[in-house]
């Protein structure tokens, strides 16, 4: 049989089609990225018990008034000097870090966890749980207590794991932890500008991120920012790298927690 000659397809209009598609995409898409500060709103708690007052040394209070003038603790910061907030917040976090005596009285203290301490606590809770489970008479209260003890065991186990991770990478036997009451308190007025509020958020974020990045760099050789970005982008996958990064960022976030309280304006 004679070979059929396939006629050549005319591809002259291919460029036109491609141009059309290109222009369509140019028109319907944007280049700019959406970026934002992620925050959580605390859950509503209904209880009659007034919480005990927090000591003043543990609060870093920032107030922004309706003229965008900022008061951070006792100093007044003008809008153009807002970038000094960064170092002030870092100072608040780190002044007492590593100190056991001669602490600055007006700043949050640090607690120093050790493997022995966490192990003992874990063992104590375990013993308590055993005692509760072997009790002869049980009432409604027992179940509640067991639940509480289980939660405590989980918490101490987590702490112990973190301590082990910290010791493994830093070689230190003690893990410095800032007082759990320590927080940044951000107050604003009803007519404070959004831009001023975001600028303060930015400074708080910057201070904490820089501290975390430094710590992560010295412990793991990569920055917290890099690990965090990786986690957000690959959250749906389950790779060993992701699990490792999650553990590492968790440790870093325990060492430098971002505890920000945003207070609803009254006026």
């Amino acid at each position, binding site marked *: 049989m004679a070979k059929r000659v396939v006629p050549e397809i005319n*591809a*002259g209009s*291919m*460029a036109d*089609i*491609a*141009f059309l*598609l*290109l222009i369509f*995409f*140019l028109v*319907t*898409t*944007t*280049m*700019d*990225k*959406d*970026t*934002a*500060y*992620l*925050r*959580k*709103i*605390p*859950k*509503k708690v209904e209880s009659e018990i007034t919480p005990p007052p927090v000591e003043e040394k543990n609060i870093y209070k920032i107030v922004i008034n309706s*003229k*965008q003038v900022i008061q951070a603790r006792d100093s007044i910061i003008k*809008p*153009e000097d*807002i*970038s000094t907030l960064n170092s002030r917040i870092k100072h608040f976090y780190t002044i007492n870090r590593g100190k056991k005596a001669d602490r600055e009285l007006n700043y949050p203290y640090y607690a120093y966890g050790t493997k022995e301490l966490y192990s003992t606590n874990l063992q104590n809770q375990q013993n308590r749980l055993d005692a509760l489970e072997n009790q002869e008479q049980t009432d409604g209260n027992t179940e509640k207590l067991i639940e509480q003890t289980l939660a405590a065991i989980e918490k101490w186990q987590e702490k112990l794991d973190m301590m082990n991770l910290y010791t493994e990478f830093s070689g230190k036997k003690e893990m410095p932890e800032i007082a759990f009451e320590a927080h940044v308190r951000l107050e*604003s*007025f*009803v*007519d*404070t*500008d*959004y*831009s*001023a*509020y*975001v*600028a303060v*958020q*930015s400074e708080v*974020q*910057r201070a904490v*991120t820089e501290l975390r990045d430094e710590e992560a760099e010295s412990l793991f050789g990569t920055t917290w*920012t890099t690990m965090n*970005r990786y986690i*957000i*982008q690959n*959250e*749906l996958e389950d790779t060993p790298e992701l699990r490792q990064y999650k553990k590492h960022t968790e440790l870093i976030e325990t060492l430098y927690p971002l505890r920000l309280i*945003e207070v*609803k*304006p009254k006026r």
Partner: protein
Amino acid sequence: MSKFKKDGGKPAPAINTSSLPDIVFMLLFFFMVATTTKEIDPLVKVIPAQGVGLTDLTPFKQRSTVDFVYLGEPLKGDASKFDKGVAVQYDGLLHPDGINYIGKWKLAKFNDKPAEMTDPKENIITCFKADEKVPMGVIFTARDILRDLDFNSIAYSASEMGNKNDYSIREQ
């Protein structure tokens, strides 16, 4: 006597354009990868606030776990018709109730999705894309409504400051 003979009689050789589609397709693919689709046409004027250390919301957008609320002066019409001069845009409309509508809007959006598609409430981020002059009182009102409905994740939108070292804050 010239060295370069003018052969006026022959026509210029045709330029080979067979690789033109390849070039255009390459451009096309570049734009497809480097850009994101436009969400909606804005109805309010938003000049973004500046900040550093921001989180990129693109992964959240791909998982469609982020809802945008736009706050600012309306582009068309009278700003004084709105409470405090701030119009609030939900998807494609400016609601006359302003910020107080946010609860209903969030619930409607949440209930519209089929049950197997929805993320838990606390994973859905509400992103405030506010103009730099928007007063914070409006946003705190929204925060209260969202808290009561257990939509606990919020985001304050801002644009990356880049190399310049100044926040653009209105002085008074």
